[in-house]
């Protein structure tokens, strides 16, 4: 790299601007958490590594979407400074009510709120949280009796780690007896079920596809998988066949068909087609995208329609759920990418947020509301795609300075009111599209840290 460019004035100005911008951002940043798993019903000492974790010697607030309680714990090394803003330790207890799967945590203080970090909520206490090293596999050993079945799972990509793992199970002689790479449903995290051919000690080896180090993973070996999918338990219609679904639709209705596949443990890749009474295809979706993309259609002619849903690669017998609705809003509103989902505000202050809408054959106005906030300029006008609203706290701040809230977008059309939650920008860039076990409470939830009057700045 040549430094010649930095002799130019514009480059120096840009560099100075970048430095200033970096200083201006003072929110906590989480780099790594150890361990990466919490056992449900137990207390775990969790160390968070990052930047600006403390503020003026004050500990941050820990938020999670899971039912946990937490306290600040003494550092592992007693010599460590209490002001170490790059490493903090917490004692975290997961209540018995927690569901197994992925949860998110954030750290908040008066200067900001961190992006979420992901942890595994597990029922199996032997699950190991491991750190990948360059050119070396992570290892977890277990003993098995002949004929015993084990489920070996790696959790990493689903925990927002930049990894692509491969798993192999080796016997005492070092011979590979089972291996797994990508899983059709969950993607980059391998998992396998393994029936021990002989009694003995087995080793689960996990390494990155490119033998990269730095990432983290949880290796879980148990007689049961952590999450068992039961498609038939879903509330929606479960389709086991590709036979068309008749739909009686009225003129001017907005039809939205939302499929679920991976979320219910199915590898189906749905291709959906809507045919009119003449058998002509009037809408189609799902050509190759693995995310469960909804089919949307505005009915212009009332009548009997046929909804065809089949697997893109024509596999049969794969379950899927369809939520067929004419009540879903014909638009999707989300916070603009530039607007963060987290803010530090004073109760009396006004702050601004930009909303952006994607319309589906609906041009009318859309109103944004939030019970906790007073909004001004909160109506996206007709045919407009965005609006910058002014927001202010509606009620006095509570004892908890960290407030979470959600926006709703509403429109009335032909006497019918459509309401949909406002989505928040993607916070987990490393997580695949179409991820299963998306932690509830992440998408659509906004945060505000309320600075109390007279508090030390």
């Amino acid at each position, binding site marked *: 790299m040549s430094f010649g460019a930095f002799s130019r004035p514009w480059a120096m100005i840009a560099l100075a601007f970048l430095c200033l911008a970096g200083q201006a951002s003072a929110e906590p940043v989480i780099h790594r958490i150890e361990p990466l798993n919490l056992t449900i019903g137990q207390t775990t000492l969790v160390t968070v590594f990052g930047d600006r974790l403390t503020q003026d010697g004050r500990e941050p607030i820990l938020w999670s979407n899971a039912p946990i309680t937490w306290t600040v714990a003494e550092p592992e090394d007693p010599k460590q400074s209490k002001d170490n803003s790059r490493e903090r330790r917490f004692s975290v207890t997961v209540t018995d009510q927690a569901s197994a799967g992925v949860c998110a945590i954030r750290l908040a203080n008066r200067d900001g709120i961190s992006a979420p970090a992901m942890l595994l909520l597990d029922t199996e206490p032997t699950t190991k949280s491991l750190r990948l090293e360059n*050119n070396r596999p992570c290892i977890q050993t277990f003993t098995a009796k002949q004929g015993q079945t084990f489920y070996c799972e790696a959790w990493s990509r689903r925990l927002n780690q930049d990894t*692509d793992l491969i798993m192999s199970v080796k016997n005492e002689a070092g011979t590979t007896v089972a291996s797994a*790479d*990508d*899983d*059709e449903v969950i*993607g*980059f995290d391998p998992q396998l079920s393994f029936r021990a051919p002989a009694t003995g000690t087995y080793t689960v080896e996990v390494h990155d*596809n*490119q*033998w*990269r180090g730095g990432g983290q993973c949880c290796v879980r070996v148990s007689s049961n998988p952590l999450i068992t999918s039961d498609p038939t338990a879903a509330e929606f219609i479960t389709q086991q066949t590709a036979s068309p679904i008749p739909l009686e639709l009225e003129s001017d209705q907005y039809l939205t068909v939302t499929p679920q596949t991976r979320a219910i443990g199915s*590898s189906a*890749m749905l*291709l959906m087609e809507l045919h009119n009474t003449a058998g002509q295809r009037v809408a189609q979706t799902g*050509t*190759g*995208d*693995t*995310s469960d993309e909804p089919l949307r259609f505005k009915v212009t002619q009332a009548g009997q329609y046929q909804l065809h849903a089949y697997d*893109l*690669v*024509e*596999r049969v017998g794969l379950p899927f759920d369809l939520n067929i609705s004419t009540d879903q809003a014909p638009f999707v509103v989300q916070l603009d990418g530039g607007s963060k989902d987290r803010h530090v505000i004073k109760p009396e202050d006004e702050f601004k947020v930009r909303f952006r809408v994607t319309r589906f054959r609906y041009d009318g106005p859309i109103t944004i509301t939030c019970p906790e906030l007073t909004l001004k300029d909160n109506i996206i006008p007709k045919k407009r795609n965005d609006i910058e609203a002014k927001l202010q706290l509606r009620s006095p701040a509570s004892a908890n300075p960290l407030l979470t809230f959600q926006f709703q977008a509403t429109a009335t059309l032909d006497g019918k009111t459509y309401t949909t939650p406002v989505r928040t920008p993607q916070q987990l860039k490393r997580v*695949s*599209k*179409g991820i299963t076990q998306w932690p509830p409470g992440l998408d659509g939830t906004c945060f505000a840290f309320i600075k109390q009057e007279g508090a030390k700045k």
Partner: protein
Amino acid sequence: MTIQKLIAKSVLVLLIVVSGTPLQAENELHEEADLKIDTIQVGQPVKLVISPKTFTLDGKHQQLQLIVTGLYADGSVADLTRAASYQLDQPEIATVNQRGAVVPKSNGETTIRAKAGDASIEMKLAVTNAESPDPVSFHFQTLPILSKTGCSMGACHGSPHGKGGFRLSLRAFDPSLDYRTIVEEEFGRRVNLLEPQQSLLLAKPRTEIAHGGGQRLRPDDVEYQRLVQWIREGCQVDPEPARCTSIRLEPGEGRFLRRPHHVQQMRVTAYFDDGSKRDVTHLAVFESSDDTICKVSRHGLAVGQRRGEVAVIARFLDQIESTVLGFIDTVPNFDWQAPEPKSYVDELVYQRLKQFQYLPAKICSDEVFLRRVSLDLTGLLPSVEQTEAFLADPSSEKRPQLIDQLLASDEHALFWSQKWGDLLKLSTRQMGHSGVLKFHRWIKQSVANNQPYDQFAREILLASGSTLSNPAGNFYRTGSDTSDITESTSQLFLGTRIGCAKCHNHPYERWTQDNYYGLSAFFHRVATRQTGRGDEAVVWMRREGEVKHPVSGQPVSPWLPAAQEHDLVSQSTDRREAFAQWLTSAGNPFFAKVEVNRIAAYLLGRGIVEPFDDHRDSNPPANGPLLEALAKDFTDHKFDRRHIIRTIVNSNTYQATAETNRYNVDDARFYSHFQPRRLTAEQLLDALGEVTGVPERFVSVHPDTKATQLPAPDLKEHNRGQIGEIEFLKVFGMPERQTVCQCERGTDSSLGQALELFNGGTVHRMVSSKQNRIHRSLAAGEPHDQILKELYLRAFSRAPNAQELQIGLDYLSRSEDPGSALEDILWALINQDEFLFQH
């Protein structure tokens, strides 16, 4: 002495570039006067055969080429067409010229009697319409003449942009375009109806006006006269021309000509859709697949140059036909001796060698065999321990045992996966980092498990779904469109380079443009789409969409060679199923042959068909029966690739020494001896690492991965830098994998390679490293003779002979710095042919 000093002192035997036989220049017209033709010795044939037995010449422009064959008591045959004398019962009907061509004179019937030696034979000839006007046909005379003279060939006016502003369709593929170009374009300046000889169309090839293509016609040529006449007649175009549906080339296959009978007259008969047939020998274009063995004159006389086998190719309009001729020389003092055949491979190779009088080489030594088979099956040199154990083993079964052991090794699976990586274009550019690694792992698993080849092909061709969970689907990411996939599939599994037929009928093969789009129809509905999940793409079949013929604009239905109607229909909506079913069926004429030929090429250094992915009638196999037998064995063993590899490497043919004898020194085709070949780039880097003890370390892959086991040439270190000594590998020919053609892998030698070996960074680093094997041995106090012995065992899989050892020890004793002296010796060893070549 430093390496640099040694450069000045050392003499490196330059690597000899062994390239394939140069192709005959397209449409080089051989005049018979220019060919060295032995005087035909008629002798005493016991019988004559004449072809055809009867014929009708319809019109004054038609001709008939006779072929007179003499059969001799010793079973040999000779073409006596030009040596025979001809007598006609009715001489006013026709004449027979010195080439044995019959030219009509008037209507009527006659008997033509051919006589050679004491034998004679007759044929019946009828002439009709000799007096009718019979204008020169644009379709069947003008265009074939332009094709025969080379005007419409790809290198001249038949190129897509023409030459000098004059563009013809390639080999008269589009007659209406050609007519417009010749007669109407440029205000008709190319033809002069009043003074036909002054036409630009004739003046240029006469070189009366400067012509980049040189002289193509002379005024006394029949072809020239026909063109003059066509212009004089007003450049007429046939109102409703019959369509030529096929041509026949005679004599058929299986003709072997023993010197001095090294000539053979060919005849081409064209068949039309109105039921007629014409002799078009004088209008056809002839080529030989190997001009060093046989040249074919413009009149269709094949003249043998040396012993060997060639395909003679005849082309008329867009029709092509070929036949194989063998030329045998009598080798003085040839006395057939061969080791006892070990299998049908040896039997069939020896049969062919005996036929052409090549003496097979002796069986190679254990040392040579161990090095050769290790490099071929694993890509790696054997270790010192393996070498010593193998050489000390007295068992007569040690070679087959070693072969089985190597075939079962992980290294074999990885090395042969790299070969498939070349063919399937595994590169991050095509399928992303994860895609490459996953596809490579899938291939390796297939090789390691010895997956039957038909299943392997089916899984690739029928792949669908996520490329992460079904990595074979990455095959469909290696092509940018249907054409790419069709051409790749055709070359990989049918051994046919069909790409030419995309724009016009294949110039060297029977494949037509219709065939091309018929094959494309199987893949046209394949769709791929990136999902945004890492390097994932999804492959699926659309339920609609047809490939359209570029000329007619009409949808083209799926088509397969020699397939029945029901073969073309898939059981599901996935059309590929029908293709895969047809492809992998036991009766498929291409599938098994292509793979066994590929395996033979990898092991024997040359395919039975060479290039090994270019199977066509005009490129005959060096040993057809061997190819058939291997293909049958392959099919009988349920497409077991390992069985074929084992069969070949266990044969005497594979285990023959590379040293030639006086009877096989000029053979590079029939496997009379092993063909030495330079180590591939990856083999060389691994071998250097093994000999020096400084193996190349690659990142982003398993830490012990060798160059011969790399999944792709363009992996990057964590998506940033290079993963290792990629530049060294590129200099030695590592392919970038842009095509499915094995020819992309460089096998030649270059100045850059010589420089790399003299004082390139990689070699210098390995040789001079203080942690390398020789310095470690010195530090451990090993005696010099032991170090030298080990060096030889590692580099050549043999111990040094007494002279070599003494030279090395003398050099060490004269040197003040043994470490530096050993570096010199090491450098000298790795610059020897014995190290650089597989032999």
